[in-house]
């Protein structure tokens, strides 16, 4: 679809909302992460009688489980299909046999071992023993968790920032294109989408689809105009080379190969979008 941007919105005038740029660390979550270590490094001991919270290792009858696997029951976890078996072993001892239902099968289980986990105290010695570089104390670990949470949030925010800037750029730029040509393009493209939706049993929302197609065109025109305005070069010969490699790969894998011109157009769009995304990343870094 042919079209151009008549007026490109100034990307540098976009103010990204503060909440998308700053990490917001929830100290309660940090404390919960520290406390989780108590259970993670719990001490395991054998118990005489099975009770809530214990793991019970059993041997099942060979008719139902000919592979001889160990049946692990976690009393109180209510694993789907094991609820009755978890209840049946409460109060039993190693060596006892129970008849119960497991995964909808009537089974006989012989208890081999009862494992009780006792949470441990979270202290500097435990933290130091975890072997994380430069993390020796609870405070070090909290700082480590905060850094990790900040990095995760930054990753989540990056996509939101890109979306925010893209939406602003698309909405505030103006475009020139032939309406009739666009109608024909929508007709052709939506027919393709409709078939794809039907093939996977997804409902077809025609108006949404139409807006999506227009939006996609504008996104490409805008990204191209943006790269040109900033002097960001897209090496079209390497885009072509990459596309041909991909086609070759798809043919080797026996996958259906779409029209080359169509693939080339998509690859070119991606290349311009990459240029825009990289610029948005530098905007975020500056903040």
């Amino acid at each position, binding site marked *: 679809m042919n079209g151009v941007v008549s007026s490109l919105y100034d990307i540098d005038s976009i103010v990204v909302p503060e909440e998308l740029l700053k990490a917001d660390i929830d100290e309660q979550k940090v404390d919960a992460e520290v406390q989780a270590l108590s259970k993670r490094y719990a001490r395991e001991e054998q118990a005489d009688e099975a009770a809530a919270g214990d793991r019970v290792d059993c041997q099942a009858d060979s008719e139902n489980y000919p592979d001889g696997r*160990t049946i*692990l029951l976690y009393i109180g976890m209510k694993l789907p299909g094991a609820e009755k078996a978890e209840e049946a072993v409460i109060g039993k001892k190693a060596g006892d046999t129970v008849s119960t239902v497991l995964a909808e099968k009537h089974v006989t289980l012989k208890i081999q071992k009862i494992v009780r986990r006792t949470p441990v105290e979270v202290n500097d010695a435990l933290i130091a023993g975890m072997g994380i570089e430069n993390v020796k104390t609870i405070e070090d670990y909290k700082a480590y968790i905060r850094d990790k949470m900040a990095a995760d949030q930054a990753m989540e925010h990056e996509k939101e920032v890109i979306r925010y800037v893209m939406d602003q750029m698309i909405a505030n730029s103006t475009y020139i294109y032939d309406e009739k040509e666009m109608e024909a393009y929508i007709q052709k493209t939506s027919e393709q989408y409709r078939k794809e939706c039907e093939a996977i049993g997804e409902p077809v929302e025609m108006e949404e689809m139409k807006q999506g197609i227009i939006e996609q065109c504008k996104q490409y025109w805008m990204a191209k105009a943006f790269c040109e305005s900033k002097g960001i070069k897209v090496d079209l010969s390497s885009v072509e080379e990459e596309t041909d490699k991909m086609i070759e790969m798809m043919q080797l894998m026996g996958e259906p190969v779409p029209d080359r011109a169509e693939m080339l157009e998509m690859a070119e769009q991606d290349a311009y979008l990459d240029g825009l995304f990289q610029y948005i990343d530098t905007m975020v870094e500056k903040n």
Partner: protein
Amino acid sequence: MAVVELKENDEWKEFIKAEYSVIDCYGENCVACVILAPTYDAVADEMSGIAFGRVNISFLPGIADEYGIDAMPTLLYFRKGKLVNQSIGSIEREELLANISKMLYED
């Protein structure tokens, strides 16, 4: 138990020889992987007797090739080295427990 970060091909191949093991195959810049991680870690903390591991498939693409992984995160469920189930995407605790249940009790 703590989730073990598996950094070498030999490591994950050895790891799945346990009677029961689950591997979280994640990748760089994957938001869904970040969302799944706390749920996965919490379940691993509660269930001793099952080996829980994690593989960054950007660094170890071999595991992705071996099991045809084309989406992240993908959880692989093994019984003595044999893949018995897999789940794709950031799943909730209930779904994770249901998948573990299948690995433990079903054929």
